């Protein structure tokens, strides 16, 4: 499991820019950013190279930020690669709350971020031959 930063944002002009500028000025790099929204508000989900520091920074700047553990899994670069991954979870009776993709920092293939409300999900993927990322793959874990 890796740490995702979840931020509550109102749908107001410039707010997302402010959020990303805050992280940028602190030298924090984002691997992925995904916004889920309604007409009034949204939740911004970020995979970065310094989640704990990002959370603190954002809180200091008045954002409502929290850390959510999610799965990050390399998706095989071939047809049905993602389907096989999702089928493995489905076969174990596990539902996916949300998912999004980013390109692996070291280059090349896609990484899928999954929120599965089941503590056994990571093991299910390992058993099915996938390689879930550990924190060390993405960032230096904060002590």
């Amino acid at each position, binding site marked *: 499991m890796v740490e995702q930063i*979840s931020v*509550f944002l109102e749908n107001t002009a410039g707010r997302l820019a402010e959020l990303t500028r805050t992280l940028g000025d602190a030298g924090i790099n984002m691997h992925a950013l995904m916004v*889920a929204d*309604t007409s009034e508000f*949204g*939740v911004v989900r970020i995979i970065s190279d310094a989640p704990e520091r990002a959370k603190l920074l954002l809180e200091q700047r*008045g954002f*409502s930020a929290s850390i*959510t553990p999610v799965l990050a899994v390399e998706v095989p670069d071939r047809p049905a690669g993602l389907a096989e991954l999702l089928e493995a979870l489905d076969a174990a009776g596990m539902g996916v709350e*949300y998912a999004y993709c980013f390109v692996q920092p070291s280059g090349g293939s896609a990484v899928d971020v999954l929120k599965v409300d089941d503590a056994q999900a990571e093991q299910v993927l390992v058993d099915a031959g996938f390689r879930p990322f550990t924190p060390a793959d993405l960032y230096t874990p904060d002590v």
Partner: protein
Amino acid sequence: MYQSEMESMTREALDALQLQRLQSLLARVYANNPIYRRKFDDAGFDPLSVDSLSDLGRIPFTVKDDLRASYPYGFFSAPLHDIVRVHSSSGTTGQVTVVGYTAGDINRWSDLMARTFASAGATADDIIQVTYGYGLFTGGLGAHYGSERLGALTVPVSGGNTKRQVQILKDFGVTVLACTPSYALLIAETAREMGIDPRELPVRIGVFGAEPWSESMRHQIESELNLKAIDIYGLSEVMGPGVATECECQCGLHVFEDHFLVEIVDADTLEPLPDGEVGEVVFTTLTKEGIPVIRYRTRDISRIIPEPCACGRSMRRIERVTGRSDDMLIIRGVNVYPSQIEQVLVGIENVAPHYQVVLTKRGSMDHVEVHVEVADDFAFDEVRELERLQKRVKAEVESALAVSIAVRLVEPKSIARSEGKAKRVVDLRADEGA
């Protein structure tokens, strides 16, 4: 005039009548109402010591909390045996006050509402549709009894079912419509939807009250419904509708001073202000038996217009009420205290008790949006959970306020605070050309 001998009596005669009625009222409540007795004793006020209207300033005030604290019947000055009816304020649970009327009170109230209709220009030949709610609210039955007392044909429709209201206005040949001003606009809108030109309806007079409205709203109602719109004023703690009313001059509301003593006081120092100055309106009910109130602070802001009126009534006028000295809002006719919202929010996880009420108009009806700050440590990563939270806040606030609202979740500390205190209410209703 319905009772011209009273409504146009000389100032001297009116002063003398007020003094005599005040003296007898003070003696009566002191003898029959333990709360007033204690209040007077605590203040060192001797109820028999009043021998001029200028002594009024020595008498302790009465506030809404006095009535709440003695819920339901504790503030009555007559035995329950003599009470023939109760009404209750439109406030929500915990804020309700109950008022009781003797047969004599109902009789006088009917006269005052007959005066109200007459000063709007109505006569026994009119057909009056009462669209104020019948029930615990004073509006419906108050207007009903006044209409009958005037001898008008009374159509007791009560509130709701706007299409039926329009159909009855048209089919019954209704000439006088009594309702809230915002409802009058809804009636016009609904008539148009039904393919009926509201200007062709037979209604010639509107008797509108129970909520604040503006001069521009009056013009809109008058042009959309082709009628004369008259502003009436009242509050259940004092009697209900029929405390003050405009005449056909539409230039301020005549207070029925033979029954109600009106004062304007500085809302902060509570010192009486001279005629013409703006302050809080305070009433003393001179003739009520069931639940008389003495120097009752209405929290409504207005001023007395001392100049004589062209209509010939000698009773002084107050200006249209322009605001409140407390935080009470009137939303679709319901009294709402924003502080109730805070009480609800304290009990809900993941939101902060910081909120802002934004009032606007949707068509002719009030629209309420409550902005609520999510908590600092709010830890949701899914929109669905936010929506669930939003629904919960909406349901709980609505149940506490008894009005429907919309909820908007906003970021922590995003509601503007001035001197550490948030601005709780943004009322844009008047700005939208209502």
